[in-house]
């Protein structure tokens, strides 16, 4: 009887461990798949051509060209804009929630922020078409509002929940004694906030912003619907841009398996994968250093 109980204990110990392999296998699987398929693309296209500013025109009949420079710029532009909007607003709102807002307002705003995180990306894209686009067109006198700025605004909004909730945790982790010492020296609330609390949680806020950016870079449907998708080299926030994610989403459904174009799209995904991995890794390092210091 006892031995059977021990048998089950051992059995579950081993079998549960198998489930851990699924996560590892998925991550390695994704990386290997992207690497192998990209290798085939690089063999045929050449790394120099792939990372050049040449046009992205894989469907051309005579001489297809595969330069992802313009697409990378599109991703960079929308992400940069999103960061420029989301970082100050997100950190500002986190300060507001943890330092100023009365409890009832906090209890009202926190669920709203959580709901923001739940809005599906395709709905955000739709909002970009019916709400933000026409608004931008009217304000700036453009023929249509489907441009990099539109994408930036929507991406900022999608990155905000991440930025806000992590920043808020970081701000609340600042020891009370710091603030009390500052007040005791005669500083007012704003001075305490900007000269004591803010420097104390600098790296944590950086991690929060980076995680938000990581989410914005990988976003697909929103930018696909809101930025206009022109493959030309972007001229600024008012030009129509196409991101790497949007390119994969648009073209993958139409290419035959095994063609150079097919592999080139996997190479695009590899670039994207490596960028997000690097950002998340860096954010984690920042956060880990912070934890170590806190102990």
């Amino acid at each position, binding site marked *: 009887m006892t031995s059977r*109980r021990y048998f089950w*204990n051992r059995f579950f*110990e081993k079998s*549960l*461990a198998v*489930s*851990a392999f*699924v*996560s*590892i296998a*998925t*991550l390695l*699987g*994704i990386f290997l*798949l*992207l690497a192998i398929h990209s290798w085939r693309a690089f063999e045929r296209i050449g790394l120099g051509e792939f990372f050049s500013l040449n046009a992205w025109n894989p469907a051309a009949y005579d001489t297809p060209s595969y330069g992802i420079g313009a697409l990378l710029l599109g991703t960079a532009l929308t992400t940069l804009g999103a960061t420029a909007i989301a970082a*100050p*607003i997100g950190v*500002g*709102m986190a*300060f*507001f929630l943890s330092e*100023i*807002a009365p409890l009832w307002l906090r*209890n009202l705003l926190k669920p*709203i922020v*959580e*709901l*923001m995180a*739940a809005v*599906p*990306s*395709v*709905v955000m*894209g*739709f*909002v970009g*078409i*019916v*709400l933000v686009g026409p608004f931008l067109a009217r304000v700036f006198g453009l023929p249509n509002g489907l441009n990099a700025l539109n994408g930036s605004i929507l991406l900022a909004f999608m990155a*905000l929940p991440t930025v806000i909730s992590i920043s808020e945790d970081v701000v609340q982790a600042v020891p009370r004694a710091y603030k009390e010492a500052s007040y005791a020296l005669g500083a*007012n*609330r*704003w001075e305490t906030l*900007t000269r004591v609390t803010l420097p104390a949680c600098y790296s944590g806020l950086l991690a929060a912003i980076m995680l938000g950016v990581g*989410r914005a870079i*990988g976003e*697909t*449907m929103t930018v696909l619907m809101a930025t206009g998708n022109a493959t030309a080299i972007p001229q600024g926030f008012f030009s129509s841009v196409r991101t790497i*994610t949007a390119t*994969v*989403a648009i073209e*993958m*459904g139409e290419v035959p398996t095994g063609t150079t174009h097919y592999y080139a799209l*996997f190479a695009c*995904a590899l670039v*994207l994968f490596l960028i*997000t*991995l690097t950002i*998340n890794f860096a954010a984690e390092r920042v956060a880990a250093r912070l934890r170590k210091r806190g102990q």
Partner: protein
Amino acid sequence: MTIRKLRMWIGMASLIVCALGVAAFMVIMLFDLSRQGIPVLSWEFLTSFPRQGMTAGGIWPAVFGTTVVTLLATLLAAPLGVACAVWLEEYAGEGAFTQFTRAAVRNLAGVPSIVYGLFGLAIFVEGMRMGASILASACTLALLTLPSVIATTEEALRQVPRALREGALALGATRWETTYSVVLPTALPGILTGVILALSRAAGETAPILFTGVAFYTRYLPASPFDEFMALPYHLYILSTQHHDPELVRPLAYGTAIALLLLVFLLNLVAFVLRAQYHPKKRL
């Protein structure tokens, strides 16, 4: 003195503006979507097929497809994710393999959804020969939601007091008996919250199902897991960008958007209530 005070008020006001701006965007967005979407919603809209080249009729096949695929994905992801979390929290020590697993889970959470779509296409659709189907999409969505199920389950397990485990072990229960009959029931509400949130995420995702099984239009409801299907998020994408006359079908698009949003918000509300009920202290 006055300059300092002035600076303080300007600073405080700017923080309030930040919060107001965020709240205002959310309110305007929800207001516009509901104003134009809710009048379109009706029992008939939800339960009839699209007609006349998707310029009339309802969204029933999309509702059906999203429900089936999401449930199937959750059925796949929940046991696997809970098992992984239980192993990490209850069995595994602090070895290199544990740390490696944790790192893998964290990094998977940051992988863009479109990359999951490509992975699903290469592995499930082509590699395992599932074809573009409900099953392939559900498997892809399951992998996508796995990291968040693991993370929330781990969090729920960490909330279970050590004393409960030690009590059970002291009574002679094995580690598995302790986990199964003491730890898991205590952590169940937290685990369910995580699973429901994963469900809501899977319901709203478009990019992972784009190449793995979603269809522009199907004449009939899918009859087997190997059929293609329609889905609410993809239907919204089609109606708002790929349709030959997007202005004409705008009301239908609004209706689809608000249906999807209501579904997702409803799931979040359930999760919220569940959490508030079992963690009165952690109430937000």
